[in-house]
């Protein structure tokens, strides 16, 4: 009994000493720096995409510190690893906000991870910057969506293919991985195509499981569907990992971009890095940014990125640009508000406008989405995209699709006095379908 007390006292003393040592430095750190949370998976299935974003954020924070930080204080990144595990995202987000007291969080990739952290951000009133193209149908006060909404990627892509320049496509295959983003996007696209007079029998919708690797049947189906005498195109919302075997099968079965072009919404420079792109030249992707965009801002960004990662072959991609825009917007909003207090920053964010990497300015709108140009690029032999078409101006992100019956009457406006993420213009009331 005595031994136990002794050891207990000893360990208590140790804890006290440790705390005593740690406390002043911790307090000092909190005084001096502004903490920024980075919530991207560094292990598990999503690590393939998200690790790059963590590096990009570290670079942006580093750059900002070189310029003297924000409000005269240095920034400090707090990196956590939610390990591609959706409930863990919520836990890690809670840790970041309540333990580390971060001023804002940059993170998430999949929609399900975003949905899992939403209640945490709402409850603890913090800010999330979400950098990935997504299915829309959401607008939340604590989230800023810097990726593309469907009308900033899917709809212009389809418009391009329907145009004479894009090949006057009349028949559509909507192929996707079986989860919320492709399902909602395809629903919107189907409604949109029908509104443009495309008959139901000219649309084929196909879903595959995550990580699908045997594409023989589906590629043959696409080939058969394309031999009905009408120009056919494939709109692919196939998720990251399944793309490599899909494109390999396309190449091997000899489906040429001139005959049946595939336009992808989830295939960027990073995904192509695992592929021999020579047989895929001419297949398309729609994004708001390509590494090949020829502007000074982009050249500088790529140079800094390669210097930061010490790898002169590292590629850049669209979600990285989204973080670049989001981070600069946050810096500007903090400077405008004069504080990092999330509540004030959220209000200051609306209307903030910063340069994007494709040579224009992106502005934050009252619905917490941003304005961006839409680019259509063709895959080249070197694994890069070459822009073949782009929207004449900037496209504002539309959170509630106008083509779905459930959401066409909804709008979001987070400015007072409306302050509502799902205002129904028909009934004049806040609150319809969707979150909150």
């Amino acid at each position, binding site marked *: 009994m005595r031994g136990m007390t002794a050891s207990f006292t000893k360990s208590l003393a140790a804890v006290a000493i440790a705390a005593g040592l740690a406390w002043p430095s911790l307090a000092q750190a909190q005084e001096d720096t502004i903490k920024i949370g980075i919530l991207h998976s560094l*292990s598990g299935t999503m*690590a393939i995409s998200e690790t790059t974003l963590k590096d990009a954020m570290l670079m942006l924070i580093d750059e900002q510190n070189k310029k003297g930080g924000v409000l005269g204080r240095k920034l400090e990144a707090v990196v956590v690893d939610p390990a591609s595990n959706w409930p863990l995202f919520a836990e890690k987000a809670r840790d970041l906000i309540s333990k580390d007291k971060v001023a804002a969080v940059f993170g998430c990739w999949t929609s399900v991870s975003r949905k899992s952290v939403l209640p945490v951000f709402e409850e603890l009133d913090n800010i999330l910057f979400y950098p990935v193209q997504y299915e829309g149908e959401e607008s939340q006060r604590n989230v800023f969506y810097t990726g593309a909404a469907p009308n900033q990627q899917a709809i212009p892509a389809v418009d391009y293919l329907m145009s004479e320049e894009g090949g006057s496509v009349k028949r559509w295959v909507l192929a996707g991985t079986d989860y919320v983003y492709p399902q909602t996007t395809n629903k919107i696209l189907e409604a949109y195509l029908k509104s443009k007079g495309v008959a139901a029998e000219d649309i084929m919708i196909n879903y595959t499981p995550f990580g699908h690797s*045997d594409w023989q049947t589906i590629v043959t189906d696409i080939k058969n569907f394309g031999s009905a005498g009408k120009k056919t195109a494939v709109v692919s919302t196939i998720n990251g990992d399944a793309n*490599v075997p899909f494109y390999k099968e396309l190449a091997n079965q000899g489906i040429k971009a001139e005959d049946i*072009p595939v336009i992808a919404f989830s295939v960027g420079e990073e995904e192509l890095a695992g592929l021999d792109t020579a047989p895929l030249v001419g297949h398309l992707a729609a994004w708001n940014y390509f590494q090949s965009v020829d502007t000074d801002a982009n050249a500088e960004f790529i140079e800094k990125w390669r210097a930061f990662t010490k790898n002169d072959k590292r590629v850049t991609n669209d979600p990285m640009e989204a973080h670049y825009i989001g981070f600069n917007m946050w810096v500007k909003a903090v400077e405008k508000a004069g504080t990092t207090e999330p509540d004030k920053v959220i209000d200051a964010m609306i209307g903030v406008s910063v340069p994007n990497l494709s040579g224009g300015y992106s502005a934050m709108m009252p619905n917490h989405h941003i304005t961006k140009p839409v680019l259509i690029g063709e895959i080249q032999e070197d694994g890069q995209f070459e822009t073949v078409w782009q929207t004449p101006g900037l496209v504002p992100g539309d959170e509630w699709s106008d083509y779905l019956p459930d959401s066409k009457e909804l709008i979001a406006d987070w400015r007072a006095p409306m302050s509502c993420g799902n205002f129904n213009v028909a009934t004049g009331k806040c609150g319809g379908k969707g979150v909150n």
Partner: protein
Amino acid sequence: MPVLRIFRLIFILIAVMAGPARADDAALRTMLNGLANADGFAAIEKIVGDIAATGDPKAERALGALSSGDLYVRKADKTVLIGKSKTGGYVLSDPLTGDVAGEAKRSEVEKIKVNNTLRRVVREALGGLTLASVDPRARLNAAETIFKSGDPHAIPTLDAAIARETDPAVKERLMEARASATLKAQAPVAETTAALETIAGRGDREALSLLKSYEAGAQGELKDAAGAAIAKIEQTLALWAAGQNVWYGISLGSVLLLAAVGLAITFGVMGVINMAHGEMVMIGAYTTFVVQDLIRQYSPDLFDWSLPIALPLAFLVSAGVGLIIERGIIRFLYGRPLETLLATWGVSLVLQQTVRSLFGPTNREVGNPSWMSGAFQLGELTITWNRLWIVVFALIVFALLLYVLNRTALGLQMRAVTQNRRMASSMGIRTPWIDAMTFALGSGIAGIAGVALSQIDNVSPDLGQGYIIDSFMVVVFGGVGNLWGTLVGAFTLGVLNKFLEPYAGAVLGKIAVLILIILFIQKRPRGLFALKGRAVEA
């Protein structure tokens, strides 16, 4: 001096021949250089049309380069040249003659952009230009292009080409191309009906596509004729589709077999629930990547041999890792399936994260050697080379494994140990050593499966995860402890899956297969081929 005279004669002849050609060249060159000032795809398209209208085969090189994106404008003098990229710039050559025309830095030239529409226009233009080529394959391609485009203006050229064609296969294609052009040309009824018959005789997807678009615009008797032709083609294609499903099933089955056959040893023969089996496959795939990377750096000529080189290495690396796992962890856990399951699951996570830290989280590119790229046509079946080789490879691996198990001393001892461990031990067999060797063999086989799978799937740290469930399914379905069961199980599941997929879709198809297996296991808990006698669980 007869020699000199002959020389002179040749000289004059060349001059006479080159004279008019040079004049044509000048016209072509002016058109080509027009590309330097063309603004937008429509303008380029018009120039391509003009060049095609000259019918001059010399334009072939320039148009081909345009289509593959190798045509550049030299900014200094606004001339259009072919550029092949090299480090820091381009080697330029003349677009008509192919003569080298110096070099240029990246900033000195501007690429002429192309898009899909333009590529199609160029392809059609090239089709007209290469009809008279000496290479029968080029003529065949030209005929094929015209068949697809069905350009009525090509009929006179086609007639001339048919008249001088000697190769029967090319002639047939030319006739079909002419028939396709006839359909578009609003020809008299008799001629059109004949054309419809020619196309129907071809009987493939392209013909179907053409007929369907014709039917949509046709009327009366001709519409009926087209409809009848379509029905006939569809009937034959339906038969081919069934054959295609069988082939796809076999091909999927061979992938399952490769992934599962290693597990059939570690799980089937030894009874170890090895959740890290998929990671052995992944290690094999990464070995292939490393081999290819080294080959690319040190001797690119050997690239086509990269897979044969990678095979033994992948076997050794995976077997080595397997040996370490067996000696380090599993041997302490024999007879405790739950612990083994958890421990190997942990090992699989460790291996994944190790590979992720070593090679990065992104996919690694493993190239297909030339003999594994592309496809060939067997009737209406498209058979891709990589799938065919994987089927062959899977069967070879299976045969080798059977040989090792049934015809070698090691195999004999393995079987003895798994059938009755204590008896085998009493007979002087070092059972722990046999366990280690068996596990290493199973892991090594998984490694060479990884070499094959790197050809069709992502090479990423998660590669193995996609195969572990399927592998267990195959082994359990086929019958634990029986290699033949694994073979039959893999192919049965493959074919079943591929027959369900067209009707149920990929997602539902997979679910249906899983449910069928569960029901089957209820009926026959020991799988298809149950091992009889006082076996495994003793």
